[in-house]
């Protein structure tokens, strides 16, 4: 395969708090190919957003710190570039959509002001041209009457409209990679479907790669090519969408899929994964999932499992699947 667009290697992020060191990410690997939509799933607090933010170096420091690893974007280590280059990357080559459309727009400026701001920041265009681009982008996200929307203030728009504005804004500079951090979580279900359809359509049309973060497996299944599953700051499984849903290998992934309520099957009561997500201040040694795992055995509480390829393109970090070399 060609060089990946984004390749995260061995990334660890820690937060230094008064209660202790929160190990939010531990030696995580992730790759995104050009034009690929990668879904990142996991429970609340498992480090999905931390991952997304570290790609753009938006981790607040202090208390957060990227302690090791590298983030290669088009072969360039984002963690090492200077501020000027970082600003060029942000918004222009990698852009990001946030969870809450309510607070992602500045309340005191009109939508048009803010969209034009992003465009003029990265492109050498005059205001007239910037406005044309805005209108064009708003049409692409199926906004009715885009010219009127430009003169509106954020509070005059609904949540779905605001999120569409954000999508239009973030894609207006034609980035290579779009990071969408739970973009539809704060919206209600019908609007969510609408926004996802628009995003899917637009992303495929302009061929941007996407890191799509969600805790909703249904959304992931609808939108993504490949899925990575995270648990408590570690990557546990990565596979193509179809394969992950059909043949989950990691006990945690299995549990996640079991926990989706279904109206097709008679399944009563709903399966849940017993126990709670561990505190990341003193995470369990070895596999972080082992206290809740139904299939745990001897080495689970001592040795951290490494990602192992079980099928082409399907990687799992679990002692159930030993490496070729370790098989006896």
């Amino acid at each position: 395969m060609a060089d990946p667009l984004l390749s995260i290697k061995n990334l660890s992020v820690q937060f230094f708090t008064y209660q202790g060191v929160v190990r939010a990410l531990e030696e995580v690997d992730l790759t995104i190919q050009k034009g690929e939509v990668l879904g990142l799933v996991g429970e609340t607090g498992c480090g999905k957003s931390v991952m997304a933010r570290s790609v753009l170096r938006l981790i607040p420091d202090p208390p957060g710190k990227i302690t090791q690893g590298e983030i290669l974007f088009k072969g360039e280590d984002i963690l090492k570039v200077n501020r000027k280059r970082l600003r060029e990357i942000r918004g222009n080559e990698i852009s990001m959509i946030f969870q809450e459309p309510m607070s992602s727009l500045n309340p005191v400026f009109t939508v048009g002001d803010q969209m034009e701001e992003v465009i003029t920041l990265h492109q050498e265009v005059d205001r007239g041209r910037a406005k044309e681009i805005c209108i064009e982008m708003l049409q692409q996200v199926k906004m009715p009457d885009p010219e009127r929307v430009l003169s509106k203030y954020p509070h005059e728009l609904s949540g779905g409209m605001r999120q569409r504005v954000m999508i239009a804004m973030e894609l207006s500079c034609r980035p290579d990679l779009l990071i969408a951090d739970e973009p539809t979580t704060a919206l209600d279900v019908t609007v969510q479907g609408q926004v996802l359809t628009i995003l899917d359509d637009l992303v495929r049309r302009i061929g941007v790669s996407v890191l799509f973060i969600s805790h909703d497996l249904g959304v992931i299944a609808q939108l993504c090519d490949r899925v990575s599953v995270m648990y408590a700051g570690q990557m546990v499984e990565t596979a193509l969408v179809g394969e992950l849903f059909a043949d989950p290998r990691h006990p945690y992934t299995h549990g996640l899929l079991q926990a989706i309520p279904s109206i097709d099957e008679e399944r009563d009561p709903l399966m849940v994964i017993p126990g709670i997500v561990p505190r990341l201040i003193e995470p369990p040694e070895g596999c972080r999932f082992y206290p809740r795992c139904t299939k745990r055995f001897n080495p689970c509480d001592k040795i951290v499992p490494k990602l192992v390829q079980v099928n082409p393109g399907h990687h799992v970090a679990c002692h159930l699947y030993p490496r070729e070399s370790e098989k006896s």
Partner: protein
Amino acid sequence: MWNEFRKEHAWQIKEFFFTIRLLRRNPSAVAGFIIIAIMILMALTASLLSPYNPIQISLRERLSPPSMGHPFGTDELGRDILSRVMYGARISLRIGVLVILIAGGLGAIIGAISGYLGKRIDNLIMRVMDVILSFPPLVLALALAAALGPSLNNAILAVAFVMIPKFARMVRGEALSVKEKQFITAARASGAKSLWIILHHILPNCFSSVIILATLILGETILIAASLSFIGLGAQPPTPEWGAMISVGRKFLMDQWWYATFPGLFILMTVIGFNIFGDALRDILDPRIRR
């Protein structure tokens, strides 16, 4: 054109009129507003309405008590006190507005930088502000005005300097809460520079509280400026400044009470006017107690 504007900004116009209605229902706001309006009107129309030239000396009429010809009496050089008080409103309001513009502008920028950048810069700036705040404002303004030399402009600079920390501290607090908002992170994620974020995202969001603080501080500003003039460090004679008039009039207070009393009353009125209006404005614009 006007109709389009009305349509597009219907919500703002509605809010604006709602604010006005709330203000009209609030008696202290109305009182404050009337006082401020009278002062402004007086300052604007001083050259038209004042019965005499404020620096016209007429030694035959010196120190005459209030009468039909001189409603507020005359001073030791026979100048009409009513006329001088009317012209004095111009100077006091000019001082007030200039000080607020300088101190509010600089203070807001300093505060926003401090709050947004945080860490060491914040610490440094805030300790400097604390040092300024630790002096009584009048004493510090006095020392500064004395060092700069007695003139009206220097007095304005001195008072503005003393007022900077008040704005800086408040804006810093606002900036601390605004910078946690998602749109700041979003702006950073689109590659905006810190300076751009401060000027474009932090400051506009602090603007409403700056306005409220400005009305509250305006009264104090006028008072300090008048005090400086009283000591002789502000407006110089023959400029008809209220503080300077009291300063001279004080010598005659026992026998010619009208000389110092009328300018004093106007200082009192102006300060009260701005203070109660500012108070009411703060209450009304606070969304938590608005409705």
